Protein backbone atom coordinates (compact mmCIF):
# COMPACT_ATOMS: atom_id res chain seq x y z
CA UNK A 1 0.00 0.00 0.00
CA UNK A 2 -0.79 2.90 -0.24
CA UNK A 3 -0.33 6.35 -1.58
CA UNK A 4 -3.19 8.53 -2.47
CA UNK A 5 -2.56 11.04 -5.17
CA UNK A 6 -2.93 13.90 -2.87
CA UNK A 7 -0.04 15.63 -1.27
CA UNK A 8 -1.40 17.63 1.59
CA UNK A 9 0.82 20.45 2.82
CA UNK A 10 2.02 19.80 6.38
CA UNK A 11 2.46 23.54 7.06
CA UNK A 12 5.23 25.92 6.07
CA UNK A 13 8.68 25.22 7.43
CA UNK A 14 10.04 27.91 9.69
CA UNK A 15 13.47 29.52 9.39
CA UNK A 16 15.33 31.24 6.59
CA UNK A 17 14.99 29.97 3.06
CA UNK A 18 18.11 28.38 1.74
CA UNK A 19 19.80 30.33 -1.02
CA UNK A 20 19.65 28.22 -4.15
CA UNK A 21 22.76 27.99 -6.28
CA UNK A 22 21.84 28.52 -9.96
CA UNK A 23 24.66 26.33 -11.26
CA UNK A 24 23.62 23.41 -9.07
CA UNK A 25 20.00 23.97 -10.03
CA UNK A 26 20.85 23.80 -13.74
CA UNK A 27 22.73 20.56 -13.17
CA UNK A 28 19.82 19.15 -11.15
CA UNK A 29 17.29 20.10 -13.84
CA UNK A 30 19.46 18.62 -16.56
CA UNK A 31 19.66 15.33 -14.69
CA UNK A 32 15.88 15.22 -14.23
CA UNK A 33 15.29 16.12 -17.90
CA UNK A 34 17.61 13.31 -18.97
CA UNK A 35 15.54 10.86 -16.88
CA UNK A 36 18.35 10.29 -14.38
CA UNK A 37 18.05 9.57 -10.66
CA UNK A 38 18.79 12.04 -7.89
CA UNK A 39 20.68 10.34 -5.06
CA UNK A 40 20.89 11.36 -1.36
CA UNK A 41 24.35 12.95 -1.70
CA UNK A 42 23.36 14.99 -4.76
CA UNK A 43 22.44 18.63 -4.43
CA UNK A 44 18.70 19.20 -4.68
CA UNK A 45 16.40 22.21 -4.37
CA UNK A 46 14.93 22.61 -0.91
CA UNK A 47 11.37 22.47 -2.26
CA UNK A 48 12.14 19.14 -3.99
CA UNK A 49 13.52 17.74 -0.75
CA UNK A 50 10.49 18.90 1.23
CA UNK A 51 8.02 17.60 -1.32
CA UNK A 52 9.69 14.20 -1.21
CA UNK A 53 9.84 14.09 2.58
CA UNK A 54 6.16 14.89 2.70
CA UNK A 55 5.15 12.37 0.05
CA UNK A 56 7.38 9.51 1.21
CA UNK A 57 6.45 9.99 4.86
CA UNK A 58 2.74 10.18 4.06
CA UNK A 59 3.21 6.95 2.17
CA UNK A 60 5.08 5.37 5.10
CA UNK A 61 2.41 6.52 7.55
CA UNK A 62 -0.24 5.04 5.27
CA UNK A 63 1.48 1.66 5.42
CA UNK A 64 1.66 1.74 9.20
CA UNK A 65 -1.90 2.98 9.74
CA UNK A 66 -3.00 0.58 7.00
CA UNK A 67 -1.95 -2.33 9.21
CA UNK A 68 -4.90 -1.55 11.49
CA UNK A 69 -8.02 -2.15 9.37
CA UNK A 70 -6.71 -5.48 8.08
CA UNK A 71 -5.13 -6.38 11.41
CA UNK A 72 -8.68 -6.13 12.75
CA UNK A 73 -9.37 -9.56 11.19
CA UNK A 74 -6.17 -11.50 11.94
CA UNK A 75 -7.47 -13.09 15.13
CA UNK A 76 -10.81 -13.94 13.46
CA UNK A 77 -9.60 -15.24 10.09
CA UNK A 78 -11.84 -18.15 9.05
CA UNK A 79 -9.11 -20.68 8.25
CA UNK A 80 -5.49 -21.17 9.28
CA UNK A 81 -4.34 -20.71 5.69
CA UNK A 82 -6.17 -17.37 5.43
CA UNK A 83 -4.86 -16.32 8.83
CA UNK A 84 -1.29 -16.97 7.69
CA UNK A 85 -1.83 -15.11 4.39
CA UNK A 86 -3.32 -12.11 6.18
CA UNK A 87 -0.60 -12.01 8.82
CA UNK A 88 2.06 -12.14 6.12
CA UNK A 89 0.30 -9.37 4.21
CA UNK A 90 0.01 -7.05 7.18
CA UNK A 91 3.62 -7.83 8.02
CA UNK A 92 4.60 -6.82 4.47
CA UNK A 93 2.87 -3.49 5.02
CA UNK A 94 4.90 -2.93 8.18
CA UNK A 95 7.98 -3.75 6.11
CA UNK A 96 6.96 -1.23 3.45
CA UNK A 97 6.52 1.37 6.17
CA UNK A 98 9.97 0.60 7.49
CA UNK A 99 11.81 0.98 4.22
CA UNK A 100 9.83 4.04 3.22
CA UNK A 101 10.78 5.69 6.51
CA UNK A 102 14.36 4.70 5.71
CA UNK A 103 14.02 6.29 2.25
CA UNK A 104 12.70 9.49 3.87
CA UNK A 105 15.61 9.45 6.33
CA UNK A 106 18.04 9.77 3.42
CA UNK A 107 16.58 13.28 3.01
CA UNK A 108 17.72 14.40 6.44
CA UNK A 109 14.78 13.71 8.76
CA UNK A 110 14.49 11.09 11.49
CA UNK A 111 11.84 8.40 11.73
CA UNK A 112 10.87 9.67 15.18
CA UNK A 113 10.26 13.20 13.86
CA UNK A 114 8.10 11.85 11.07
CA UNK A 115 6.23 9.56 13.41
CA UNK A 116 5.52 12.35 15.84
CA UNK A 117 4.10 14.40 12.98
CA UNK A 118 1.71 11.52 12.27
CA UNK A 119 0.61 11.25 15.90
CA UNK A 120 0.09 14.98 16.29
CA UNK A 121 -2.14 14.98 13.21
CA UNK A 122 0.24 17.31 11.39
CA UNK A 123 1.15 14.69 8.80
CA UNK A 124 -1.50 12.85 6.81
CA UNK A 125 -1.94 9.26 5.71
CA UNK A 126 -4.15 7.80 3.01
CA UNK A 127 -7.74 8.43 4.05
CA UNK A 128 -8.84 5.03 2.71
CA UNK A 129 -7.82 3.62 6.09
CA UNK A 130 -10.41 5.70 7.85
CA UNK A 131 -13.06 3.28 6.60
CA UNK A 132 -13.91 0.26 8.78
CA UNK A 133 -13.45 -3.43 7.91
CA UNK A 134 -16.84 -4.88 8.74
CA UNK A 135 -16.86 -8.41 7.37
CA UNK A 136 -14.28 -10.96 6.27
CA UNK A 137 -14.81 -10.12 2.59
CA UNK A 138 -13.43 -6.65 3.33
CA UNK A 139 -10.02 -8.32 3.55
CA UNK A 140 -10.38 -9.62 0.01
CA UNK A 141 -11.84 -6.37 -1.31
CA UNK A 142 -9.04 -4.32 0.22
CA UNK A 143 -6.57 -6.58 -1.59
CA UNK A 144 -8.45 -6.39 -4.87
CA UNK A 145 -9.58 -2.75 -4.99
CA UNK A 146 -7.49 -0.80 -2.50
CA UNK A 147 -4.19 -2.53 -3.28
CA UNK A 148 -5.20 -2.52 -6.93
CA UNK A 149 -5.67 1.25 -6.87
CA UNK A 150 -2.45 1.66 -4.92
CA UNK A 151 -0.53 -0.34 -7.52
CA UNK A 152 -1.87 1.89 -10.31
CA UNK A 153 -0.71 4.89 -8.34
CA UNK A 154 2.63 3.41 -7.41
CA UNK A 155 3.92 1.77 -10.57
CA UNK A 156 4.83 5.18 -12.05
CA UNK A 157 6.74 5.90 -8.82
CA UNK A 158 9.14 3.06 -9.61
CA UNK A 159 10.56 5.49 -12.19
CA UNK A 160 10.36 8.60 -10.03
CA UNK A 161 13.42 10.84 -10.00
CA UNK A 162 14.51 10.20 -6.42
CA UNK A 163 16.59 6.99 -6.44
CA UNK A 164 15.89 5.62 -2.92
CA UNK A 165 12.13 6.15 -3.33
CA UNK A 166 12.07 4.61 -6.81
CA UNK A 167 13.98 1.54 -5.60
CA UNK A 168 11.74 1.14 -2.55
CA UNK A 169 8.69 1.31 -4.81
CA UNK A 170 9.92 -1.49 -7.06
CA UNK A 171 9.87 -3.87 -4.11
CA UNK A 172 6.61 -2.46 -2.75
CA UNK A 173 4.87 -2.87 -6.10
CA UNK A 174 5.96 -6.50 -6.46
CA UNK A 175 4.54 -7.33 -3.05
CA UNK A 176 1.38 -5.33 -3.67
CA UNK A 177 0.70 -7.21 -6.89
CA UNK A 178 0.93 -10.43 -4.92
CA UNK A 179 -1.48 -9.05 -2.29
CA UNK A 180 -3.92 -8.03 -4.97
CA UNK A 181 -3.99 -11.53 -6.44
CA UNK A 182 -4.44 -13.03 -2.98
CA UNK A 183 -7.34 -10.66 -2.29
CA UNK A 184 -9.01 -11.54 -5.55
CA UNK A 185 -8.48 -15.25 -4.87
CA UNK A 186 -10.12 -14.86 -1.45
CA UNK A 187 -13.17 -13.30 -3.12
CA UNK A 188 -13.35 -15.94 -5.86
CA UNK A 189 -13.44 -18.60 -3.16
CA UNK A 190 -16.23 -16.79 -1.30
CA UNK A 191 -18.26 -16.27 -4.49
CA UNK A 192 -18.15 -20.04 -5.07
CA UNK A 193 -19.56 -20.55 -1.59
CA UNK A 194 -22.86 -19.94 0.15
CA UNK A 195 -25.40 -17.19 -0.40
CA UNK A 196 -24.24 -15.55 2.83
CA UNK A 197 -20.66 -15.49 1.58
CA UNK A 198 -21.70 -13.88 -1.72
CA UNK A 199 -23.69 -11.28 0.21
CA UNK A 200 -20.64 -10.45 2.28
CA UNK A 201 -18.58 -9.90 -0.86
CA UNK A 202 -21.20 -7.65 -2.44
CA UNK A 203 -21.59 -5.68 0.79
CA UNK A 204 -17.84 -5.12 0.97
CA UNK A 205 -17.64 -4.09 -2.70
CA UNK A 206 -20.49 -1.62 -2.18
CA UNK A 207 -18.65 0.03 0.68
CA UNK A 208 -15.11 0.08 -0.81
CA UNK A 209 -15.74 0.95 -4.47
CA UNK A 210 -16.10 4.71 -4.18
CA UNK A 211 -13.39 5.20 -1.56
CA UNK A 212 -11.07 3.16 -3.82
CA UNK A 213 -11.54 5.37 -6.84
CA UNK A 214 -11.17 8.42 -4.62
CA UNK A 215 -7.66 7.16 -3.81
CA UNK A 216 -6.47 8.67 -7.10
CA UNK A 217 -7.14 12.11 -5.66
CA UNK A 218 -9.00 15.14 -7.00
CA UNK A 219 -9.72 15.60 -10.70
CA UNK A 220 -6.83 17.05 -12.67
CA UNK A 221 -8.74 20.28 -13.18
CA UNK A 222 -9.13 20.66 -9.40
CA UNK A 223 -5.62 19.59 -8.43
CA UNK A 224 -3.33 22.12 -6.87
CA UNK A 225 -0.50 22.82 -9.28
CA UNK A 226 2.74 21.42 -7.96
CA UNK A 227 6.23 20.94 -9.28
CA UNK A 228 5.94 17.18 -8.86
CA UNK A 229 5.41 16.55 -12.57
CA UNK A 230 8.33 18.77 -13.60
CA UNK A 231 10.55 17.06 -11.04
CA UNK A 232 9.69 13.60 -12.26
CA UNK A 233 7.98 12.61 -9.00
CA UNK A 234 4.51 12.36 -10.49
CA UNK A 235 4.41 11.07 -14.04
CA UNK A 236 0.76 10.25 -14.80
CA UNK A 237 -2.26 12.40 -13.93
CA UNK A 238 -4.88 11.45 -11.32
CA UNK A 239 -7.69 11.14 -13.86
CA UNK A 240 -5.66 9.01 -16.27
CA UNK A 241 -4.71 6.61 -13.48
CA UNK A 242 -8.29 6.46 -12.22
CA UNK A 243 -9.63 5.69 -15.70
CA UNK A 244 -7.07 2.94 -16.14
CA UNK A 245 -8.12 1.44 -12.80
CA UNK A 246 -11.84 1.57 -13.60
CA UNK A 247 -11.31 0.02 -17.04
CA UNK A 248 -9.32 -2.88 -15.55
CA UNK A 249 -11.63 -3.41 -12.59
CA UNK A 250 -14.97 -3.60 -14.39
CA UNK A 251 -13.92 -6.78 -16.16
CA UNK A 252 -12.59 -8.31 -12.94
CA UNK A 253 -15.93 -7.56 -11.25
CA UNK A 254 -17.73 -9.39 -14.05
CA UNK A 255 -15.54 -12.47 -13.67
CA UNK A 256 -16.14 -12.35 -9.94
CA UNK A 257 -19.88 -11.96 -10.34
CA UNK A 258 -20.36 -8.80 -8.30
CA UNK A 259 -21.90 -5.52 -9.32
CA UNK A 260 -20.15 -2.19 -8.85
CA UNK A 261 -22.34 0.37 -7.06
CA UNK A 262 -22.48 2.95 -9.85
CA UNK A 263 -25.53 3.05 -12.18
CA UNK A 264 -23.67 5.41 -14.52
CA UNK A 265 -20.90 2.89 -15.14
CA UNK A 266 -20.98 1.88 -18.83
CA UNK A 267 -18.70 1.28 -21.78
CA UNK A 268 -18.18 4.33 -23.99
CA UNK A 269 -17.28 3.07 -27.45
CA UNK A 270 -16.20 6.51 -28.69
CA UNK A 271 -13.77 7.07 -25.81
CA UNK A 272 -12.68 3.45 -25.61
CA UNK A 273 -13.14 3.63 -21.85
CA UNK A 274 -15.79 3.09 -19.20
CA UNK A 275 -17.76 6.17 -18.15
CA UNK A 276 -18.51 6.38 -14.46
CA UNK A 277 -20.64 8.52 -12.15
CA UNK A 278 -19.77 11.65 -10.21
CA UNK A 279 -17.49 11.17 -7.23
CA UNK A 280 -18.73 12.56 -3.94
CA UNK A 281 -15.84 14.89 -3.22
CA UNK A 282 -17.58 16.28 -0.14
CA UNK A 283 -17.24 12.87 1.45
CA UNK A 284 -13.61 12.64 0.35
CA UNK A 285 -12.67 15.99 1.88
CA UNK A 286 -14.69 15.27 4.97
CA UNK A 287 -12.73 12.05 5.59
CA UNK A 288 -9.42 13.74 4.77
CA UNK A 289 -10.42 16.46 7.21
CA UNK A 290 -10.77 14.00 10.07
CA UNK A 291 -14.45 13.11 9.94
CA UNK A 292 -14.31 9.57 8.62
CA UNK A 293 -15.66 6.74 10.73
CA UNK A 294 -12.25 5.61 11.92
CA UNK A 295 -9.96 8.68 11.88
CA UNK A 296 -10.07 9.05 15.65
CA UNK A 297 -9.72 5.34 16.37
CA UNK A 298 -6.83 4.84 13.93
CA UNK A 299 -4.73 7.62 15.40
CA UNK A 300 -5.67 6.58 18.93
CA UNK A 301 -4.45 3.04 18.17
CA UNK A 302 -1.14 4.35 16.84
CA UNK A 303 -0.80 6.67 19.83
CA UNK A 304 -1.53 3.85 22.26
CA UNK A 305 1.06 1.56 20.66
CA UNK A 306 3.59 4.41 20.82
CA UNK A 307 2.81 5.29 24.45
CA UNK A 308 2.63 1.68 25.62
CA UNK A 309 5.94 0.98 23.91
CA UNK A 310 7.79 3.96 25.39
CA UNK A 311 9.27 1.97 28.29
CA UNK A 312 10.44 -0.71 25.86
CA UNK A 313 12.23 1.76 23.60
CA UNK A 314 13.76 3.50 26.61
CA UNK A 315 14.94 0.15 27.99
CA UNK A 316 16.59 -0.74 24.68
CA UNK A 317 18.48 2.56 24.64
CA UNK A 318 19.45 2.28 28.33
CA UNK A 319 20.69 -1.28 27.83
CA UNK A 320 22.70 -0.34 24.74
CA UNK A 321 24.37 2.45 26.72
CA UNK A 322 25.18 0.16 29.65
CA UNK A 323 26.53 -2.42 27.22
CA UNK A 324 28.81 0.08 25.51
CA UNK A 325 30.11 1.43 28.85
CA UNK A 326 30.88 -2.14 29.96
CA UNK A 327 32.71 -2.84 26.73
CA UNK A 328 34.80 0.31 27.16
CA UNK A 329 35.60 -0.65 30.75
CA UNK A 330 36.61 -4.13 29.67
CA UNK A 331 38.90 -2.76 26.94
Amino acid sequence: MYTQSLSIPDGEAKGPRKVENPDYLAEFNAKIDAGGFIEPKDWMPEAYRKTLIRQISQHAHSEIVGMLPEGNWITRAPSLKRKAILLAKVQDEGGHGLYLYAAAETLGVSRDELYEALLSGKAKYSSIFNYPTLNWADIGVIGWLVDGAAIMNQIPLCKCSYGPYARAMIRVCKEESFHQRQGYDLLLQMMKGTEEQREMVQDAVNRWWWPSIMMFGPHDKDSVHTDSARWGIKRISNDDLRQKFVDATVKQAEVLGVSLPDPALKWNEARGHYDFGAIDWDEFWSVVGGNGQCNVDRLAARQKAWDDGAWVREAAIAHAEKHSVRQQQAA
Partner: protein
Amino acid sequence: MSEHDITRAEHIEYVLRLADNVLILGQRISEWCGHAPVIEEDLALSNMALDLIGQSRLLLTHAGELEGKGRDEDQLAFLRVERDFRNVTLMEVPNEDFGRTTVRNFLFSAFQVLLWDKLSASTDRALAAIAAKSLKEARYHLNHSAEWVIRLGDGTALSQQKTQAALDYLWPYSAELFADSPVDAAAAAAGIGPAWSALEAEWEALVLPVLAEATLVVPARTPFKSFGKFGRHSEHMGHLLATMQYMQRTYPGAQW
Protein backbone atom coordinates in the same frame (compact mmCIF):
# COMPACT_ATOMS: atom_id res chain seq x y z
CA MET B 1 10.42 -50.33 22.88
CA SER B 2 8.08 -50.08 19.96
CA GLU B 3 5.06 -48.22 18.72
CA HIS B 4 2.88 -50.87 20.33
CA ASP B 5 3.66 -49.31 23.70
CA ILE B 6 1.52 -46.32 22.82
CA THR B 7 -2.17 -46.32 21.99
CA ARG B 8 -3.45 -44.40 19.01
CA ALA B 9 -5.29 -42.05 21.38
CA GLU B 10 -2.13 -41.31 23.34
CA HIS B 11 -0.16 -40.73 20.17
CA ILE B 12 -2.79 -38.28 18.91
CA GLU B 13 -2.90 -36.52 22.27
CA TYR B 14 0.88 -36.08 22.28
CA VAL B 15 0.78 -34.53 18.80
CA LEU B 16 -2.22 -32.36 19.68
CA ARG B 17 -0.36 -30.94 22.66
CA LEU B 18 2.43 -29.86 20.36
CA ALA B 19 -0.06 -28.48 17.85
CA ASP B 20 -2.20 -26.62 20.33
CA ASN B 21 0.76 -25.00 22.08
CA VAL B 22 1.94 -23.38 18.88
CA LEU B 23 -1.55 -22.61 17.62
CA ILE B 24 -2.68 -20.84 20.77
CA LEU B 25 0.56 -18.93 21.23
CA GLY B 26 0.51 -18.01 17.53
CA GLN B 27 -3.01 -16.66 18.01
CA ARG B 28 -1.93 -14.65 21.04
CA ILE B 29 1.16 -13.20 19.36
CA SER B 30 -0.82 -12.28 16.25
CA GLU B 31 -2.79 -9.87 18.46
CA TRP B 32 0.34 -7.69 18.44
CA CYS B 33 0.35 -7.12 14.70
CA GLY B 34 0.19 -3.35 14.24
CA HIS B 35 0.47 -2.55 17.95
CA ALA B 36 4.11 -3.29 18.87
CA PRO B 37 6.49 -0.76 20.47
CA VAL B 38 8.55 -0.34 17.27
CA ILE B 39 7.97 -1.39 13.67
CA GLU B 40 10.86 -3.84 13.81
CA GLU B 41 9.04 -5.72 16.58
CA ASP B 42 5.77 -5.62 14.65
CA LEU B 43 7.65 -7.49 11.95
CA ALA B 44 9.45 -9.85 14.33
CA LEU B 45 6.32 -10.76 16.30
CA SER B 46 4.31 -11.25 13.10
CA ASN B 47 7.08 -13.48 11.87
CA MET B 48 7.03 -15.56 15.01
CA ALA B 49 3.23 -15.84 14.88
CA LEU B 50 3.51 -16.94 11.25
CA ASP B 51 6.07 -19.60 12.13
CA LEU B 52 3.92 -20.92 14.97
CA ILE B 53 0.73 -20.98 12.92
CA GLY B 54 2.63 -22.72 10.12
CA GLN B 55 3.86 -25.35 12.59
CA SER B 56 0.35 -25.78 13.97
CA ARG B 57 -1.03 -26.44 10.50
CA LEU B 58 1.45 -29.27 9.91
CA LEU B 59 0.88 -30.75 13.35
CA LEU B 60 -2.91 -30.53 13.24
CA THR B 61 -2.94 -32.11 9.80
CA HIS B 62 -0.77 -34.91 11.16
CA ALA B 63 -3.03 -35.36 14.20
CA GLY B 64 -6.05 -35.51 11.90
CA GLU B 65 -4.36 -38.19 9.79
CA LEU B 66 -3.48 -40.24 12.86
CA GLU B 67 -7.07 -39.93 14.01
CA GLY B 68 -8.38 -41.09 10.63
CA LYS B 69 -11.79 -39.49 10.96
CA GLY B 70 -11.27 -37.02 8.14
CA ARG B 71 -10.77 -33.96 10.33
CA ASP B 72 -8.45 -31.42 8.73
CA GLU B 73 -6.39 -28.64 10.31
CA ASP B 74 -9.30 -26.19 10.30
CA GLN B 75 -11.79 -28.58 11.81
CA LEU B 76 -9.34 -29.31 14.60
CA ALA B 77 -8.49 -25.63 15.16
CA PHE B 78 -11.94 -24.13 14.86
CA LEU B 79 -14.44 -26.80 15.80
CA ARG B 80 -13.05 -28.35 18.94
CA VAL B 81 -14.39 -27.17 22.28
CA GLU B 82 -12.26 -25.78 25.04
CA ARG B 83 -11.77 -28.99 27.01
CA ASP B 84 -10.44 -30.76 23.91
CA PHE B 85 -7.53 -28.34 23.52
CA ARG B 86 -4.26 -29.68 24.89
CA ASN B 87 -2.08 -26.57 25.08
CA VAL B 88 -0.46 -25.65 28.37
CA THR B 89 -2.15 -22.75 30.14
CA LEU B 90 1.01 -20.65 29.70
CA MET B 91 0.09 -20.24 26.02
CA GLU B 92 -3.37 -18.81 26.58
CA VAL B 93 -2.89 -16.18 29.28
CA PRO B 94 -3.24 -12.67 27.84
CA ASN B 95 -0.28 -10.79 26.36
CA GLU B 96 -0.72 -8.00 28.90
CA ASP B 97 2.32 -6.01 27.72
CA PHE B 98 5.49 -6.39 25.70
CA GLY B 99 7.32 -7.59 28.81
CA ARG B 100 5.00 -10.52 29.43
CA THR B 101 4.88 -11.43 25.75
CA THR B 102 8.66 -11.39 25.55
CA VAL B 103 9.23 -13.42 28.70
CA ARG B 104 6.64 -15.99 27.62
CA ASN B 105 8.19 -16.26 24.17
CA PHE B 106 11.57 -16.76 25.80
CA LEU B 107 10.46 -19.44 28.29
CA PHE B 108 8.52 -21.30 25.62
CA SER B 109 11.10 -21.00 22.82
CA ALA B 110 13.76 -22.45 25.10
CA PHE B 111 11.47 -25.41 25.77
CA GLN B 112 10.67 -25.79 22.08
CA VAL B 113 14.31 -25.79 21.03
CA LEU B 114 14.94 -28.74 23.33
CA LEU B 115 11.74 -30.51 22.40
CA TRP B 116 12.09 -30.11 18.62
CA ASP B 117 15.67 -31.27 18.84
CA LYS B 118 14.57 -34.52 20.51
CA LEU B 119 11.55 -34.89 18.25
CA SER B 120 13.67 -34.69 15.13
CA ALA B 121 14.68 -38.27 16.00
CA SER B 122 11.08 -39.39 16.57
CA THR B 123 9.96 -42.85 15.43
CA ASP B 124 6.95 -40.97 14.02
CA ARG B 125 8.65 -39.93 10.80
CA ALA B 126 6.15 -37.26 9.88
CA LEU B 127 6.64 -35.70 13.28
CA ALA B 128 10.41 -35.91 12.94
CA ALA B 129 10.23 -33.98 9.67
CA ILE B 130 8.06 -31.26 11.21
CA ALA B 131 10.46 -31.06 14.15
CA ALA B 132 13.53 -30.62 11.97
CA LYS B 133 11.90 -27.69 10.18
CA SER B 134 10.51 -26.15 13.36
CA LEU B 135 13.78 -26.40 15.28
CA LYS B 136 15.38 -23.78 13.04
CA GLU B 137 12.49 -21.42 13.66
CA ALA B 138 12.49 -22.01 17.42
CA ARG B 139 16.22 -21.25 17.61
CA TYR B 140 15.58 -17.90 16.01
CA HIS B 141 12.67 -17.21 18.37
CA LEU B 142 14.87 -18.11 21.33
CA ASN B 143 17.72 -15.83 20.28
CA HIS B 144 15.41 -12.96 19.56
CA SER B 145 13.40 -13.22 22.77
CA ALA B 146 16.49 -13.85 24.94
CA GLU B 147 18.06 -10.64 23.63
CA TRP B 148 14.91 -8.74 24.51
CA VAL B 149 14.65 -10.30 27.98
CA ILE B 150 18.18 -9.08 28.68
CA ARG B 151 17.48 -5.62 27.26
CA LEU B 152 14.29 -5.22 29.25
CA GLY B 153 15.58 -6.75 32.48
CA ASP B 154 18.88 -4.87 32.38
CA GLY B 155 17.43 -1.67 30.91
CA THR B 156 15.77 0.99 33.05
CA ALA B 157 14.36 0.67 36.56
CA LEU B 158 10.86 0.67 35.08
CA SER B 159 11.63 -1.99 32.51
CA GLN B 160 13.30 -4.14 35.15
CA GLN B 161 10.21 -3.87 37.33
CA LYS B 162 7.81 -4.69 34.50
CA THR B 163 9.87 -7.63 33.28
CA GLN B 164 10.23 -9.01 36.79
CA ALA B 165 6.44 -8.72 37.19
CA ALA B 166 6.02 -10.62 33.91
CA LEU B 167 8.36 -13.38 35.12
CA ASP B 168 6.60 -13.56 38.49
CA TYR B 169 3.27 -13.96 36.72
CA LEU B 170 4.41 -16.55 34.17
CA TRP B 171 6.81 -18.66 36.19
CA PRO B 172 4.15 -20.65 38.07
CA TYR B 173 2.55 -21.59 34.72
CA SER B 174 5.87 -22.89 33.41
CA ALA B 175 5.69 -25.80 35.87
CA GLU B 176 2.90 -27.34 33.83
CA LEU B 177 5.28 -27.93 30.94
CA PHE B 178 7.07 -30.52 33.06
CA ALA B 179 4.11 -32.21 34.74
CA ASP B 180 4.21 -35.96 34.12
CA SER B 181 1.38 -37.90 32.56
CA PRO B 182 0.70 -41.38 31.14
CA VAL B 183 0.81 -39.86 27.64
CA ASP B 184 4.37 -38.69 28.23
CA ALA B 185 5.42 -42.07 29.53
CA ALA B 186 3.86 -43.87 26.57
CA ALA B 187 5.36 -41.45 24.02
CA ALA B 188 8.79 -41.87 25.57
CA ALA B 189 8.48 -45.66 25.64
CA ALA B 190 7.48 -45.77 21.98
CA GLY B 191 10.19 -43.35 20.90
CA ILE B 192 7.60 -40.87 19.64
CA GLY B 193 9.06 -38.14 21.78
CA PRO B 194 10.46 -37.37 25.20
CA ALA B 195 8.47 -37.16 28.39
CA TRP B 196 8.39 -33.41 28.82
CA SER B 197 9.52 -33.74 32.44
CA ALA B 198 12.81 -35.10 31.14
CA LEU B 199 13.56 -31.69 29.60
CA GLU B 200 13.30 -29.68 32.82
CA ALA B 201 16.97 -29.73 33.82
CA GLU B 202 18.14 -28.81 30.33
CA TRP B 203 15.50 -26.11 30.13
CA GLU B 204 16.68 -24.55 33.38
CA ALA B 205 20.25 -24.67 32.14
CA LEU B 206 19.14 -22.71 29.08
CA VAL B 207 16.84 -20.26 30.81
CA LEU B 208 18.46 -19.41 34.13
CA PRO B 209 21.68 -17.82 32.83
CA VAL B 210 19.70 -15.48 30.58
CA LEU B 211 17.40 -14.47 33.43
CA ALA B 212 20.47 -13.85 35.59
CA GLU B 213 22.06 -11.70 32.90
CA ALA B 214 18.78 -9.81 32.72
CA THR B 215 19.11 -9.18 36.50
CA LEU B 216 15.80 -10.95 37.08
CA VAL B 217 15.05 -12.97 40.20
CA VAL B 218 13.68 -16.43 39.53
CA PRO B 219 10.63 -16.99 41.74
CA ALA B 220 10.53 -20.01 44.03
CA ARG B 221 8.29 -22.85 42.87
CA THR B 222 4.89 -22.75 44.60
CA PRO B 223 2.12 -25.34 44.98
CA PHE B 224 0.23 -23.57 42.14
CA LYS B 225 -0.72 -25.91 39.34
CA SER B 226 -2.32 -25.36 35.96
CA PHE B 227 -3.86 -28.09 33.85
CA GLY B 228 -4.29 -26.82 30.30
CA LYS B 229 -2.59 -29.79 28.71
CA PHE B 230 -5.12 -32.04 30.39
CA GLY B 231 -7.98 -29.97 28.97
CA ARG B 232 -8.72 -27.88 32.06
CA HIS B 233 -7.95 -24.33 30.99
CA SER B 234 -7.98 -20.84 32.45
CA GLU B 235 -10.90 -18.43 32.06
CA HIS B 236 -8.95 -16.75 29.26
CA MET B 237 -9.16 -19.74 26.92
CA GLY B 238 -12.87 -19.46 26.18
CA HIS B 239 -12.50 -15.84 25.10
CA LEU B 240 -9.54 -16.64 22.89
CA LEU B 241 -11.51 -19.44 21.21
CA ALA B 242 -14.63 -17.28 20.89
CA THR B 243 -12.60 -14.86 18.80
CA MET B 244 -10.57 -17.42 16.89
CA GLN B 245 -13.48 -19.74 16.08
CA TYR B 246 -16.08 -17.03 15.38
CA MET B 247 -16.25 -17.39 11.60
CA GLN B 248 -16.31 -21.18 11.48
CA ARG B 249 -18.95 -21.28 14.20
CA THR B 250 -21.11 -18.62 12.55
CA TYR B 251 -20.96 -20.07 9.04
CA PRO B 252 -20.85 -23.85 9.50
CA GLY B 253 -19.50 -25.77 6.55
CA ALA B 254 -18.46 -22.73 4.50
CA GLN B 255 -15.19 -22.92 2.58
CA TRP B 256 -12.82 -19.95 2.79
